[in-house]
């Protein structure tokens, strides 16, 4: 037997799943700390790649001068500066990612509240029918 109320509820839920829910439901499947750590780690990886790319371009831009200087320069001091710059860039980016991930997690949880309520109502409807 077709239950009209149930179909209405399921349609609303399917519509949410196809639109806003597409972004929110995967976020809601994580625990808060897991989601934020995952985002921060992903950001650290992309920031590392970006830093590598910028560094490679910087070196290649003045490659001849770099090759000429490499025997004269204080390599330890150069590496130290490089590591400091890298850490500063990556930590700043991780901080931004942390703030953004916390904001998005809270937003997703808020958006999913109605969806979870609809899920509970649906399961209640099935129980009543049985």
């Amino acid at each position, binding site marked *: 037997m077709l239950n009209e109320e149930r179909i209405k509820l399921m*349609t609303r839920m399917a519509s949410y799943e196809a639109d806003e829910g597409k972004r929110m439901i995967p976020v809601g499947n994580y625990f808060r700390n897991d989601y934020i750590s995952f985002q921060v780690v992903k950001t650290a990886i992309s920031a590392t790649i*970006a830093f590598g*790319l910028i560094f490679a*371009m910087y070196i290649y831009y003045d490659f001849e001068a770099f090759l000429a200087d490499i025997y004269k320069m204080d390599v330890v001091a150069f590496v130290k500066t490089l590591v400091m710059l890298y850490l500063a860039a990556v930590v700043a980016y991780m901080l931004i990612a942390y703030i953004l991930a916390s904001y998005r997690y809270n937003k997703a949880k808020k958006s999913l509240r109605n969806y979870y309520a609809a899920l509970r109502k649906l399961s209640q409807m099935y129980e009543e029918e049985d």
Partner: protein
Amino acid sequence: MTNLLVMKEHLKNFYGKYEIYITPVMKFLLALVSLITITKNLGFMYRLTNPAILLITALLCSFLPVNIILLFSAGFIILHLYALSLECAVVVLALFLLMFLLYFRFSPRDAVAVLLTPLCFACHVPYAMPLAMGFVGTPLSAVSVGCGVIVFYVLDYVKLNSKALGNLETESRIQRFQYVIDSIMGNKTMIVMLAAFAVTVILVYLVRRLSVNYAWKIAMVVGAITNVMIILIGDLMMDINISIVKTIIGTVLSVLLIIVLEFFVFSVDYSRTEYVQFEDDEYYYYVKAVPKMMVSAPEKKVKKINSQKKLSSASSYHGTHADTRARTSARKLDDDFDVR
């Protein structure tokens, strides 16, 4: 005005009914226009200029998410540049990678602005972009628009210097790389435009959110004026040749375009017919959900009540709470009088 409002309603109904066809067509057109613009301006790789390839790619984009158009456009640009000079292709590839890694990974929904900004430049209405993103985006959209400005100026530089870039065979690879980087980084017009667009996006966003009447209109005017002012100041400070007349005409055209967009797109809720499918233990459901059209609220009547007349003709008032209160207290006074 009434005709325009009727047209708006028709558009809304039309979109609600045929959204399933309109969205892919729009994506197809956007992809096709982007690819044609790229081919027309940078058609260095002969094989990619074949219209069949452009059409097939645009058709493919019509069924895929919007950001895929960006991916295909970036791919086409890099291939064309590779045919011109390897150094150019490497620099632009690095630029695209940096944009993706540092920004668009965080905010993929804004990525389409990178595609639309160079297109607006090509249509001579670049100033529409910061205004539009200020209206529909967030302050962070300034970064997207900025990326679009960088992409446009880099490609414009390659287009204008294609002969010189193609004839750098005699110089070493490193020198060619230096030449490309120096020319891109030293583009003062690009820096002025970046500053102007970024400030405009943020300002339009801030003003349109103010709780004052006509916030949208004020934001539009303030944004347009600020944009022109920053470009003019930048022009004077950096000693570059930006045409003032062109800037002002471009800004006016952009404002007109935004007014049209605001009327038909930004302020309209294009709720659409949805096709959803799901199942339970007994059935498969294929549901077409058609949104109910909202009936406009009846016009409110404002009744002016003159306090002096109220006393003399209290019996003629009906309906409002104030009148009821007035009559009740009048009766109370009468009762008090009787008791005494």
